[in-house]
């Protein structure tokens, strides 16, 4: 059986405590995963300064070259996996086996990660506003004649990762090029991607001290976030809430991403149907950047019907089918609980589940022995309990809202696609702290430009600027 060890400063360590990652459908054990005890994590993180020193010694440009090489290794090479190895195809199959993600979606996420690793210069350029990378080497430099200095806010970035979608790993991927060691706690069903990314970095020549990989229980994740100067946590509200007030930790909870169509564009709504469908369905609706709401000033019913017509055609397919668009739930109970929540919220209200009418069947489906939640479109008013909800499958509510109520009515929105040329509305959206990422025009919410910060700017999370002056050394001349 495959055994995935911990990586302690890059070195494999086989724990006596193990967890089993199981096949989402058969329940067969796909891998045994070593589990880190909290004390071990804490002990390793007592040596953070030396891990950071190992990365700090390497020029940023060299680290970027390492990242580019890692992109190729991640995508193409057979890499170590515990005591065995893993080809790219095995990675896709193993990832699919424990998360239910169809191969095609796994490959798309793989490509996302490759892009970020390969384009790390552009990504970091975007995050730093094209700061000369030598500033990271020296700690100071000059930009447009102005002296500047940046210092790292931490010796390690600790990340508590989810199992829902491997695309999120693209978010921490630039950390190595930013000279920041990593302590990663993978999601219990997705130990594969971070392990493979670390192996790609090591093969590319990154120092092994820079990588900690600690599959663990909840307490282990807490320990990582407590001990690292900077952290990221992914998960539902219950997981992320304890960290909401901790500025050291960047919280990646539900996104409540949305599409808004302005009064000026609403009569051309059919032109935007592709963008709407992609925003809701891509990646099986599992990402925080998937749209969970379509907010319009009028014609909500027509839009809901058309979107439902499109989404009702999406049905379960085999994991290896290139056309597969939705993933099953690894845990059947979760699908049933989510479905029951939706039923409860719909009961006794004027809201209408439009997809059910189109499909002629319920949203819960069994296929090849797996439990699916089929794409769901709900037509409701803005006060309804389902108007601003996010679930772990393609779900969207279509809501009518007067343009004048935007953006306040939206609430927190990680990605907002605004289809309008109304300058007054755009001005309000641009000024709103409720909107994390703003796409103007019919850009699907799931399209990420990696030179743009996503849910926080990693560079600004890891580095801070200090006031800096330097007296010219006259004696040297």
């Amino acid at each position, binding site marked *: 059986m495959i055994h995935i060890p911990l990586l302690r400063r890059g070195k494999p360590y086989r724990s006596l405590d193990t967890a089993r990652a199981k096949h989402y459908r058969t329940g067969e054990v796909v891998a045994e995963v070593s589990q880190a*005890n909290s004390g071990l994590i804490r002990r390793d993180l007592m040596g953070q300064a030396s891990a950071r020193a190992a990365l700090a010694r390497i020029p940023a440009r060299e680290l970027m070259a390492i990242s580019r090489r890692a992109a190729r290794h991640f995508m193409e090479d057979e890499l170590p996996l515990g005591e065995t190895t893993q080809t790219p195809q095995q990675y896709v199959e193993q990832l699919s086996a424990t998360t239910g993600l169809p191969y095609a979606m796994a490959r798309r996420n793989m490509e996302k990660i490759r892009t970020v690793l390969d384009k790390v210069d552009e990504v970091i350029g975007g995050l730093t506003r094209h700061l000369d990378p030598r500033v990271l080497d020296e700690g100071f430099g000059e930009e447009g004649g102005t002296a500047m200095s940046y210092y790292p806010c931490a010796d390690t970035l600790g990340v508590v990762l989810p199992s829902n979608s491997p695309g999120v790993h693209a978010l921490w991927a630039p950390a190595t090029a930013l000279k920041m060691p990593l302590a990663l706690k993978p999601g219990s069903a997705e130990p594969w991607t971070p392990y493979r990314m670390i192996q790609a970095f090591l093969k590319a020549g990154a120092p092994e001290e820079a990588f900690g990989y600690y599959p663990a229980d909840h307490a282990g994740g*807490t320990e990582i976030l407590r001990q690292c100067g900077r952290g990221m946590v992914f998960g539902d509200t219950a997981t992320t809430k*304890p960290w909401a007030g901790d500025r050291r930790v960047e919280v990646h909870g539900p996104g409540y991403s949305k599409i808004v169509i302005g009064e000026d564009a609403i009569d051309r709504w059919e032109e935007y149907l592709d963008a709407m469908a992609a925003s809701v369905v891509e990646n099986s609706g599992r990402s925080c950047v998937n749209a969970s709401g379509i907010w319009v000033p009028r014609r909500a019913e027509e839009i809901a019907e058309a979107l439902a017509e499109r989404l009702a055609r999406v049905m379960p397919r085999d994991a290896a089918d290139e056309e597969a668009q939705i993933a099953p739930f690894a845990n059947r109970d979760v699908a049933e609980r989510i479905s029951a929540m939706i039923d409860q919220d719909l009961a006794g209200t004027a809201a209408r589940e439009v997809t059910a009418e189109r499909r002629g069947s319920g949203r819960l489906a069994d296929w090849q022995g797996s439990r699916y939640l089929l794409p769901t479109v709900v037509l409701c008013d803005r006060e309804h309990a389902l108007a601003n909800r996010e679930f772990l499958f393609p779900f969207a509510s279509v809501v009518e809202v007067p343009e004048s109520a935007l953006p306040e009515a939206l609430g927190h929105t990680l990605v907002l696609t605004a289809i309008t040329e109304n300058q007054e509305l755009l001005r309000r959206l641009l000024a709103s702290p409720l909107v994390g990422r703003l796409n103007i025009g019919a850009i699907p919410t799931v399209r990420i430009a990696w030179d743009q910060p996503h849910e926080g700017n990693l560079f600004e999370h890891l580095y801070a600027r200090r006031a800096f002056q330097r007296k010219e050394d006259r004696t040297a001349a």
Partner: protein
Amino acid sequence: MSFRRRVQYFYVMKERVGEARRALDAWVREVVAWHFDPATGCPFWLDYAARLDWDPRKEIRAYDDLGMFGNFQDEWLRGGPVRRWVPKGYAERPVYVFETGGTTGVPKSRINIDDFRIDYEIFSERLPEEHFPKGADWLMVGPTGPRRLRLAVEHLAQHRGGICFLVDLDPRWFIKLLKMGEREMAERYKWHVIDQALTLMRAHDGIQCLFTTPRLLEALCEKVSLKKMGIKGIFCGGTEMTPQFHRFAVEELLDGVYFAPTYGNTLMGLATHKPPAPEDNYAIIYYPPAPRAMIEVVDPERPERVVEYGETGRVRLTTLTKEFFMPRFLERDEAEREVPCEAYPWDGVRNVRPFAPLQTKVVEGVY
């Protein structure tokens, strides 16, 4: 081991297991006779017997007969009056009351007279002299309050000719802090405890033996090398201990200081760990202090069935002392059933941990 030696060992062990079992059965008859005698028994069991249509003193002839009582109910120990547990035979003696951790509502109470001293004196015989020297002083860093542990460890130290220094930790407050989401405050409380322990160790050279909980041990070792502080033996318990923790402690925390993991509680007494052996791969194997207490591993669905050796099941405790009679109590733990060994010719348990179906409901904290 040669085949011939294995056969010899089998017969020797069979004989020893048989002897231990006969001693247990005789002890069961003596304890039952005491607890159900109107002159010596406690009100709880005498009332209980009055409602039976059979006489325990006649019917209970061996350990297996204790099944006639069914399972001991945990609720019987929650709330008062606590005096219903005091045997009339000890009516004139000073009585202690000890409580369980209190992680799940009203704590269970157990009365005690000398049991904790007897249990720890028996345990003392198993401690290696070179690591727990006679006359050495002890430091106990852990829960005191209403628990048996403080008096027991202190008695252990005194019994071995030492003096016990104490640093208290209130586990109920710690757990409450965690439940309130006050992680940082819980952490500060932990370091407050550790600081006190370090102060005592630095001030008193005679401290060579330590009792603490796994989490506190980790915290201490983050600050100092216990070996350099003069500690020779560590007696560790109070919360779940995994094989991984055991290995981590031995390989990375202790610099060779002797580590004695223990499993005990207010209701049972104190189990002794099997000395570490390479073939056990850091599994933590405990044996109960038979015949005063027995630990069995039973089928959670049919608790009357003891599982096979190596099989996982729920831990069932039976306490058999003249102070306290507790037949067949289903603990909140699970484990694997372990075969008898030379030192302990009765069943043991391997890798005790919280019983999975109840696990999510308990916050363990540092205690």
